[in-house]
Each structure stands twice: as structure tokens, then as C-alpha cells.
């Protein structure tokens, strides 16, 4: 094989991979928003549907906003999605996730808030590792989960305002903690969200 032939091969292979690499990054850029939307929609849509009880006409996942909720150890901002439900162009509910600690570990709860009345609209558990049949009973219980709806967001959720599900105290407290965190974020960043 002559040197010239060899160089030609290297050049062609580089050219082919270069052109395709460029093309692929273009496709990636063109699709990345849609892919992110699909991923969030697939994971969060069931919880959103459960949490938001008021009627709305838009797609809350499409109308999401990213807000900064703090920084991690290395100083990078932690961002969280806030989903906004509208009817006839007016915001009727916003939903965001809060996290607490249950019996088995981290608990995530999607909390829907009605901003004009400053009350909780509804909640739904998104992430959990609770004991099946014990902690999960609390999450499925209408009477326990339903207590949050209509509660004002200004005061704390522990203590006497919510009755824990008997037999699953840790899970109940984890859910209360998560709801409280989510409502705190909303109260602090109300202007930015709306």
C-alpha cells in the first residue's frame, strides 16, 4: 500500500465520520426539546392527572417552567420543573414535586396548588420505596391523601392539621414533609412561577 493511498483512506474515513457527526448533532439539537418533553410526560403525566383536580384545557407538561430551588455541593444550581395548568389562558393550578423521607427512603410527591386561593388542590406520590401493603396503603387511601385538598398552603402540614394513616406513621409523615417542602418552594418563588 503506498503512502498516498493510505492518506486517501484516512482522509475519506475522517470526512465520512465528520459529516455524519455534524448531521447527527443537528438532528440531536432539533429533537432534544421534544425528547425531554416526552420523557417528562411519560413519567410525570399520571401523577399530574391525579394531583390536579380542577378543570384545565392546556397541556401542563408543555407549559412547564424550570425554577432554581438551591445549589448542590459543588455550587451548581438545582432546577426543578413546575407544571402549569391553564383554563382559557388563565392559570388555575401549578404543580411541583416535593421530597420527604418515608419508612423505606426517599418519597416524592407531586403537589398541585391553586394559586389564587392559596390552597392545595391535590397530591399524588411519584417516587417511593415503602413496604408493600403497609406504607403503600397510606398512598392509596382516599381518606388520607384527600385530607390535603383544600388545606391552606401558608401553615405547616405536620402536627395537628393532617391525621396520619394509622399503621403507617413514617410514610404519612414523609408525605406531609414532601407536601410542606413543595408548598414552601411555591410561596417563596410565587412571582417567578406565575
Amino acid at each position, binding site marked *: *500500500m503506498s503512502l498516498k*493511498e493510505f492518506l*486517501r*483512506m484516512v482522509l*475519506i*474515513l475522517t470526512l*465520512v*465520520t465528520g459529516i*455524519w457527526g455534524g*448531521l*447527527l448533532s443537528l*438532528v*440531536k439539537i432539533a*429533537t432534544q426539546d*421534544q*425528547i425531554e418533553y*416526552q*420523557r417528562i*410526560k*411519560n413519567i410525570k403525566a399520571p401523577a399530574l392527572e391525579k394531583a390536579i383536580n380542577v378543570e384545565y384545557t392546556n397541556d401542563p407538561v408543555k407549559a412547564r417552567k424550570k425554577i432554581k430551588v438551591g445549589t448542590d455541593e459543588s455550587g451548581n444550581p438545582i432546577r426543578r420543573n413546575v407544571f402549569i395548568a391553564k383554563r382559557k389562558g388563565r392559570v388555575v393550578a401549578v404543580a411541583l414535586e416535593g421530597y420527604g423521607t418515608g419508612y423505606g427512603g426517599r418519597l416524592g410527591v407531586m403537589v398541585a396548588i391553586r394559586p389564587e386561593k392559596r390552597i392545595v388542590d391535590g397530591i399524588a406520590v411519584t417516587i417511593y420505596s415503602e413496604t408493600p401493603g403497609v406504607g403503600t396503603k397510606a398512598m392509596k387511601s382516599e381518606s388520607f391523601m384527600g385530607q390535603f385538598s383544600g388545606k391552606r398552603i401558608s401553615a405547616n402540614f405536620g402536627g395537628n392539621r393532617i391525621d396520619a394513616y394509622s399503621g403507617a406513621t413514617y410514610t404519612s409523615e414523609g408525605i406531609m414533609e414532601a407536601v410542606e417542602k413543595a408548598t414552601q418552594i411555591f410561596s417563596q418563588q410565587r412571582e417567578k412561577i406565575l
Partner: protein
Amino acid sequence: MSTMWQEFSKGLWKEVPPFRFVLGLCPTLAVTGKVSSALGLGCGVIFVLMVSNTLISIFKNQIPGKIRVPVFIVIIASAVTIVELMMEAYFYTLFEVLGIWIPLIVVNCLILGRGEAFARKNPVHLSVADGLGMGVGFTISLSVLASFREIIGSGTWFGLSLLPASYIGFELLQSPPGAFICLGLLLALINLISSKMEDKKQGC
């Protein structure tokens, strides 16, 4: 025009993959549990096959023979990545169902095989016809096998229930070993039909 039709139609019966031309068997067995996933993967394969056949045919004189396989592989892998991104963006449920089988289109021997055996030696219009024919033939084959497995295995077709609710489904056909057995029987059936057709021809 007639030669283009010939190249297209040979993919539909005479050399239909994967039955006549036993190439690309792995996805044939894996995604044929449901008709919708078979059709989805088939469309992905048609796209990749068209792109690779067209490009290989256009640049056949520029690509040095010694490095043609790496160049073909880059072309195919990139086309597959495009399919992967598009499917994730616009057909998310299908993307979740097909999972690992979308990247695996890359190693589907059918695609590299057509590039190597056909597109490398033929003009563009014939290569396009060949790619389309082979792709459509592959998709139809997958759908036939999937229809059989889905209807008998669980009594549904495209997710719609066809058979009465009292039909409990022949679950074996939905499981992996059932896929092998179904494909074996289908191949035997095709052998039988084509040997009958040969007999008729000789009778004339």
C-alpha cells in the same frame, strides 16, 4: 422502469427476507409478539435500508475498496441513530417497547448485506428500488408472523380483541420459545408453497 419494478418486487416474494434469505433473524423473533411493534421496527429498517443503499450507491466510486466496510458501518450506524432520536421524540411508547432493538438495527445483517451485495455494484435508482423492496418485504414478513402470534397467542390484533373474551390465549406463542416454533412452521409452509409452485411450472 421495468427493471426498477423487478428489483423492487424480488424483495416481496422471490428473495423475501428473512424467509428466503435467512438474514436479520434476531429482530424477526424478538419484536413479533405484537403487530404494532413489528410494524414500527419494520419502518425503522426501511428508512435505514433506503439511506444506506442510496448513499453507498452514490459514492460507490469514491469509497476505496479496502475501507468500504467501515464506511458502510458508519453510514448505517448514523442512520440508525437518526431513527433512534426521531422515535424517542415522536413515538415514545413505541420507543419504550422496542428498546434495545432500535440500536440493534445496526447489526441487522440484511442492511450491510444489501449494501455489500447490491448497492455497491448497481446504479442509484436500482439500489433505491432494491432497498425499498427488501425493506417492505421484511416489514410484511414481520407483520405476518406477528399477526399469527398475536391473534393465536392472546386473541388480539393491533391491540383490538378479535376473538371472544372467553378465549384464553395460547400463551406459548407469546413466549420466546414460541417465536422459534412459529418461525420454523412458517418457513416450512413457505417451502411447501414454493415446491408446489415449482411442480406446477414443470407441468406446463
